[in-house]
């Protein structure tokens, strides 16, 4: 009995932390468009609403539903399709403390709608179209503790002005990518192991492909003519993958134990390769 009453309470609590009812229609609408709504914590009566993982198709219209929810403390719109104009729907969301707008199309025009969000302490604008104009519009948010402006067009001047207006604010500008070397970190592909060329004029000699690990095969055409590269399927079917000019190479995704038939441009078979277990080199010989 105790258990049942606790569960009954749980259901109630899930739907309305600390007794505050959330608009069920708004909840359903948010869920419908891929958003999640969770209590900030079990002892808090405010909500954490997120679209950054499963709701990236969110557009400005979808924000109407979010605005209908009372007591939202954190809203994550990262990477969604909202625009600056859509932020008008957030104007009355005075309970917002954390707002993620990074990697969206929002701009200076939209930022003015945030000027009244006096409880905002975290504002993420990284990777947006904002400029110093946005920073100037945010100078009245006295509770703002952290603002993120990496990969935006803000300048030293704008940052200095905002820092003067809000001395306790931490303005995170991030690393200057233009100062970082772009050394290629990908290791070079492993050396390709040569595989055997088996000459034949009969396509039926080329065996069906067998299963194996995902590898790469590099075709090198040392003959004097254009050749066709044809995959022999698991059921023996033939599938053209492309032509290779004389002297050229081509890297092809394949699987160990797959068979590749080489023909001339009239589809007359010249020979075939069977891939080995590792990245392999298939040299189409001169003759």
């Amino acid at each position: 009995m105790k258990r049942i009453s606790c569960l009954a309470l749980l259901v109630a609590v899930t739907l309305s932390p600390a007794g505050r009812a959330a608009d069920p229609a708004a909840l359903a609408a948010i869920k419908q468009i891929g958003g999640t709504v969770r209590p900030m914590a079990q002892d808090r009566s405010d909500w954490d609403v997120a679209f950054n993982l499963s709701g990236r198709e969110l557009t400005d219209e979808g924000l109407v539903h979010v605005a209908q929810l009372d007591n939202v403390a954190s809203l994550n719109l990262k990477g969604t399709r909202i625009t600056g104009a859509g932020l008008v729907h957030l104007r009355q969301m005075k309970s917002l403390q954390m707002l993620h707008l990074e990697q969206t199309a929002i701009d200076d025009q939209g930022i003015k709608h945030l000027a009244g969000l006096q409880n905002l302490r975290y504002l993420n604008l990284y990777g947006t179209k904002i400029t110093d104009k946005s920073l100037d519009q945010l100078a009245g948010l006295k509770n703002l503790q952290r603002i993120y402006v990496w990969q935006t067009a803000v300048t030293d001047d704008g940052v200095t002005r905002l820092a003067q207006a809000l001395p306790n604010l931490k303005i995170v500008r991030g690393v200057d990518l233009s100062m970082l070397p772009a050394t290629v970190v990908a290791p070079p592909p492993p050396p390709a192991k040569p595989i055997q060329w088996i000459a034949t004029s009969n396509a039926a000699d080329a065996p069906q492909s067998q299963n194996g690990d995902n590898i790469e095969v590099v075709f090198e055409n040392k003959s004097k003519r254009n050749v066709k590269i044809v995959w022999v399927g698991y059921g023996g079917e033939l599938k053209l993958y492309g032509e290779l000019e004389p002297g050229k190479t081509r890297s092809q995704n394949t699987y160990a134990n797959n068979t590749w038939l080489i023909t001339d441009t009239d589809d007359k078979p010249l020979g075939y390769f069977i891939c080995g277990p590792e990245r392999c080199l298939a040299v189409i010989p001169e003759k």
Partner: protein
Amino acid sequence: MLSLQHSRRDLLRSSVGLASLSVPTMFQLCADAAIAPRAKRCIVIYCWGGISHYESWDPKPDAPAELRGEFATIQTATPGIHYSEHIPLMAQHSDKLAIVRSIHHKQGGHQQGMYVSLTGHDPPGGVKAKNRENWPSVGAMVSRFQEPMAGTPAAIRLPYSMYDNGTLMAGEYGGWLGPDYDPVLMKTPAGKPFGGVSRYTKRELDLKLHLPKDRILGRQALREKLERTVGAQQDYDRLDRFRKMAADMLLGSAVREAYDLESEDPRIRAMYGDHIGGQSMLLARRLTEAGVPVVQVCAGAGDLAGGGGDNWDTHRGHFPKMKNSLLPVFDRSVSALLADLEQRGLLEETLVVFLTDFGRTPKINNNGGRDHYPAVYSVALAGGGIQGGQAYGSSDSDGAQPASDACTPGDFHATVYKAMGIDSHSELVDEFDRPFQICDGQPLPLF
């Protein structure tokens, strides 16, 4: 809330039949402590082998030469806090780090030291990796309270399992939480490997990219057909789970995108360093950003192999190995991770946890090495609501004993749970309905 607390155990026991209410939600609602969570994700960085506290976060410039070692001490970005000289990049991020210099335990072996460090509980005698009686790792436990999206593993380990001379180590698994909570092992797809032995066996998820969709679906269908004819379905339940997860990811989830390091800005990749240590940290950022709640990174070669490779078990040639192989990779990758999380605004909601088996002996041995030393060592936290720019507790002037605020792995774990919004006194039941309080430590005042 007291009446709720009273029946919490009943409630958790009954969870099997309540598919509609997720266990974490019920748990959160019935827990008694008033905790406001900050962190939503957790990255655990494990220095396999036992990183020396002297040559990292707790240098002893005033100790006698035979203890002090060869390295100098540097000022960090935080006045009054000094690190050892070969982590200069990390020193610039001291404002984000809370170093704990007074942690200690009683386990002098790797197996046991790793177990107590990763689970927060002393190991039983003869502990074995695959034993379901073992305590879950901190990563597994944290993941138990998360609700990831479909097709997203609750916890991932990178880039390999931890071994000692070929023996798989206990402590980084789901233990009595059951196989569903074993963090899933993934290989980091790029980077120069650590010197030494790292075993790539029994990987559960190896995302082979660029596989055509029809091929994945075809393989799935074939497997299902085969298994229907082979035998009892329940034998395959666990394999099925991983396969389904792998297939979900391959078919285009955020996790698959995150796994593709080639899609990262090459300048950011370079910032983490051209090494599997750095690329694993980058992958950890990408995976947590994509919704994986917990990622653990082994920061060192996977098999200690008698201290032979690039791991922290520096019994021989300690100083050159630290200076030339281990610290440069660690310094660069950790600094890049902290800077990158910060500039994306992720650090506030991502807890970064540094753990290791134990510290190293004060006295330098005849092979120019330092040996195992659990009596005092250093660990650290960053992000997730942790107050950076602090050093909690202290060791004595020789770095041999805690001098103030001595604490245990259990206390450190309780701090992690608190940061993640998990009541460290909560109880869970194992498959036999036996109740366990998840942690017996007290959270440290690092917030």
